[in-house]
């Protein structure tokens, strides 16, 4: 098994949260020192941009570009928001990061905050991660005491305060614009840009929002440079490492930091301990519940954003959920659709009405009451959901659409046999 560089999880030990002192001993806050002492705001943005760091929350938005869209003459105060609302099923990397080395993401937030002259920082965290929220509150205080937060950070003119904001818990709150509404104490409906949050976000002020993992890379990019970061990937199209969360029918489910572009087969065989005894790989969801089933023909695919896009799928959050020959993918899609139907915020009609409709048709098929006519209806519904208000709905039908594309025979078998062939 090859040992790849560990950037984010370097000092990971079982049940141990790296202390501030431990983090400092391993180069922690050196990136922030360099930032404040050697670099202008635009230098930082330039470095992040050149590193090709793509947002790790699922959307893969270029982080440098996002920072650039905050106009230099934009009004103050500006906000930097860290999205720790990790609610994509199968995904738990942010939880691992918070519990491994909370200061790494904090340092990243400060660096990004400096680059856009943000005065206010917020970490938005899901209620299921209450232990993480407590860790962050404790460590933020220690960071402030050490001079990394508050006024005149490390003797500079830069000032930033970071607070932890607890969510009441709903999947949609992970979506950028819905999260802004949640933070403002409004119903977390998504909002369609323009204006973009970097222009008018929280309280109509410029706001940059990124994922925990995205922030955690920033200190390293500043310390080692954009080219170093790009070279961490095994593919030309990828950049950096990625924390892959693996679960399902493998021997060692868990979060593994591996190069962007590593082959799926290597992740499963070498790092996840292979398939469970007697289990054969049938398919996986490569990046959370809102990506499509990836069939066996892509077992050797290079796991980066571009390669997944080429085969009509998405890397999403990099949460790989593995299914074997005994998994009924109709039933799995029914479970996923049930999740999305329940979690839909209900703001727009296609999503609110469409998802329960799809769920009911899938339930009938799974229970042996399906008809051949259901398939074109499901196909049509899948297309219709792309006209919903936000990106939630197209994500919600990704499993369904890939089921019909790659595993149509399995759906048809349910209909012809009037029963689930797996039960």
């Amino acid at each position, binding site marked *: 098994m090859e040992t790849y560089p560990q950037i984010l999880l370097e000092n990971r030990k079982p049940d141990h949260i790296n202390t501030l002192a431990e983090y400092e001993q391993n180069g922690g806050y050196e990136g922030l020192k360099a930032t404040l002492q050697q670099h202008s705001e635009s230098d930082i943005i330039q470095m992040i941009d050149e590193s090709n760091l793509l947002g790790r929350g699922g959307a893969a938005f270029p982080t440098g570009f996002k920072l650039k869209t905050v106009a230099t003459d934009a009004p103050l105060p500006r906000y930097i928001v860290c999205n720790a609302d990790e609610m994509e*099923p199968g995904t738990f990397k942010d939880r691992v990061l918070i519990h491994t080395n909370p200061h790494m993401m904090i340092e990243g937030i400060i660096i990004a905050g400096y680059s856009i002259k943000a005065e206010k920082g917020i970490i938005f965290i899901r209620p299921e991660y209450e232990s993480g929220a407590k860790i962050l509150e404790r460590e933020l205080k220690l960071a402030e005491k050490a001079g990394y937060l508050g006024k005149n950070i490390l003797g500079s003119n830069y000032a930033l305060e970071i607070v932890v904001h607890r969510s009441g818990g709903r999947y949609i709150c992970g979506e950028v614009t819905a999260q802004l509404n949640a933070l403002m104490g409004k119903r977390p409906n998504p909002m369609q840009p323009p204006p973009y949050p970097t222009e008018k976000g929280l309280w109509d002020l410029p706001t940059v929002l990124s994922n925990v993992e995205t922030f955690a890379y920033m200190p390293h990019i500043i310390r080692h440079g954009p080219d170093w970061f790009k070279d961490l990937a095994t593919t030309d199209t990828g950049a950096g490492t990625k924390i892959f969360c693996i679960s399902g029918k493998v021997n060692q489910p868990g979060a593994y930091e591996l190069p962007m572009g590593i082959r799926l087969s290597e992740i499963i065989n070498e790092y996840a301990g292979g398939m469970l005894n007697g289990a054969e790989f049938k398919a996986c969801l490569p990046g959370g*519940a809102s990506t499509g089933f990836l069939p066996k023909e892509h077992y050797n695919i290079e796991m980066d954003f571009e390669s997944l896009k080429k085969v009509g799928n998405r890397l999403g959050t990099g949460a790989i959920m593995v299914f074997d020959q005994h998994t009924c993918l109709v039933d799995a899609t029914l479970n996923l659709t049930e999740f999305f139907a329940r979690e839909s915020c209900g703001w727009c009609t296609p999503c609110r009405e469409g998802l329960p409709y799809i769920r009911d048709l899938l339930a009938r098929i799974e229970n042996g009451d399906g008809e051949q006519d259901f398939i074109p209806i499901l196909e049509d519904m899948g297309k219709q959901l792309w006209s919903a208000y936000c990106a939630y709905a197209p994500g919600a039908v990704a499993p369904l659409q890939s089921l019909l594309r790659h595993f149509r025979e399995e759906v048809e078998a349910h209909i012809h046999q009037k029963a689930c062939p797996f039960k």
Partner: protein
Amino acid sequence: MLPDELREALEKQIAHVDHPRELVVDAMLALQDHYGYLSDEAVEQTAAMLGMSALEVEELSTFYTFIYREPVGKYVIHVCDSLICWMDGFESIKNYLCQKLDIEVGGTSADGLFTLLPVCCIGYCDRAPAMLINRKVYGPLTPGKIDQILEKLRSEA
């Protein structure tokens, strides 16, 4: 009535922020902890403290998974029913909990201690099947482990 201590703590927090309503979830959670659930009275108190209408607070309270608008047990069990937990035995875990507590999903045990609710993926897929009790995680679950957890909580209640 809210105890003075809690009211003052919240008011202090509110005075510290630019926009009181940004604390609405914190306030709802705090009042819920006090009353055991977010009662009608708590909705009105939250609204009054934050300069919102009761209707605005109601809209949010019914939106969020972890705000309970009806009485719940001392311990709220959220058992994960999303994909990985579902594959790894959610049904049998749920059935076992129902049988042990003699309730249906959504119900509260006769002693008023436990409420059982389903919840979407809680981010512990590496410890499936998993559940949260009062926002603390337990997993991977087996019937034996569930017995131990419930017994421990009963003895602490």
